[in-house]
């Protein structure tokens, strides 16, 4: 019964959100804005459910006395710190919440992403072999962008940065456009399947 209700809700809201694009009436835009707000509220609540699930999983790890318990304790402490700090001191520029973001979260995120430079390069070095013409084209364009997009490329030749820029702005963008058009058409087809109740894997 609930699944049927859910399918009807998906159909009705999906159809309304699609049709409202072509309509220009106050009541329609009022319902449209309300549905967008509902969407955001449900999304926020879903994120809270996700946070609680993470919290409970780590609490369970601690309760079972596993070796990873210390690390789980760190995760729980970090979650609680951000929430309690925001509740007591707010989220202003000088708050502990913002301090933890600026001095802990942001440096760690930047460092984690910078590590990818090593891993992506080493994985490419170990795994990539030029076995065909297509693979050679990939390797040449990668090298051209790698060398041409920094000061080293400019030292070798003034044309290298220009060539790298041309490659990025024209043939690469052309392929990206082809992919994006494909993604767009695929997304429309999938959205229609969801609205019409053909695609119900989320239930």
């Amino acid at each position: 019964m609930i699944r049927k209700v859910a399918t009807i809700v998906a159909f009705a809201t999906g159809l309304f959100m699609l049709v409202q694009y072509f309509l220009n009436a106050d009541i329609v835009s009022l319902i449209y804005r309300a549905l967008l707000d509902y969407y955001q509220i449900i999304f926020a609540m879903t994120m809270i459910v996700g946070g609680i699930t993470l919290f409970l999983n780590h609490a369970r790890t601690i309760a079972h006395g596993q070796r990873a318990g210390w690390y789980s304790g760190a995760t729980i402490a970090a979650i609680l710190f951000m929430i309690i700090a925001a509740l007591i001191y707010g989220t202003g520029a000088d708050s502990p919440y913002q301090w933890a973001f600026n001095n802990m979260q942001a440096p760690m995120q930047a460092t984690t992403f910078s590590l990818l430079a090593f891993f992506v390069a080493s994985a490419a070095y170990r795994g990539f072999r030029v076995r065909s013409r297509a693979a050679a084209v990939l390797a040449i364009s990668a090298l051209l962008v790698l060398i041409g997009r920094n000061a080293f490329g400019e030292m070798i030749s003034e044309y290298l940065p220009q060539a790298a820029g041309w490659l990025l702005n024209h043939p690469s963008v052309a392929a990206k456009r082809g992919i994006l058009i494909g993604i767009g058409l695929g997304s429309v087809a999938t959205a229609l399947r969801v609205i019409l109740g053909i695609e119900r894997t989320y239930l």
Partner: protein
Amino acid sequence: MEISTLVAVFFTMAIFSFLYRDNPFYRLAEHVLIGLSVGFTLVLLFNSVLLPKLFQPLFGSHDLWSLIPLALGLSMFAGLKKSWGSYSKPALALMIGSGAGVSIPAMMEARVLRQMASAIEPFSRMGAGESVGLWFIVTILISLIGVATVMIYFFYTRPETKPVTFVSQVGIYFLMVFFGATFGYTVTSRLTLLIGRLEFLLGDFLGLI
């Protein structure tokens, strides 16, 4: 030295220590990062969504319509208990259904029509009588051929005739250029981040640069 710099240095070095191998410092930093990110996101969502769109209308101006999203939002908590999981489905369906409905015109406009228009737009400069060089014409022709051949490559139900196969092969070369350029660009952007972290360690912390 400020405590904030020392804390940032500790966590930066803890993450960098993974270059050697997995170790307790890295795992601690990893878990702290997850916890901080979750806490940060939850607070952000509460302040930017739940407070202005739900709690202020409900408790501030006693807007009873806000009970609907409250009930739908609370129904998501049913997912925490397996046997109650199905009660969260109508709210989930509202989210997915409305998202699908909104995405159809948005996707058509941003991903299909605008991309097609951008591929053809340079030709309008020629049509308007603007003087353009030979290199410009070659470049826009290459771009147009790239879009068309890549789309034909992804057209899986195409007839396997020789000309169509040849055109899709050309599409593969354009895709390889895209993948190569994207790889190079990604590595370059990650290197920029790495330089930023090294600048912080050598400059702000050690004062060497």
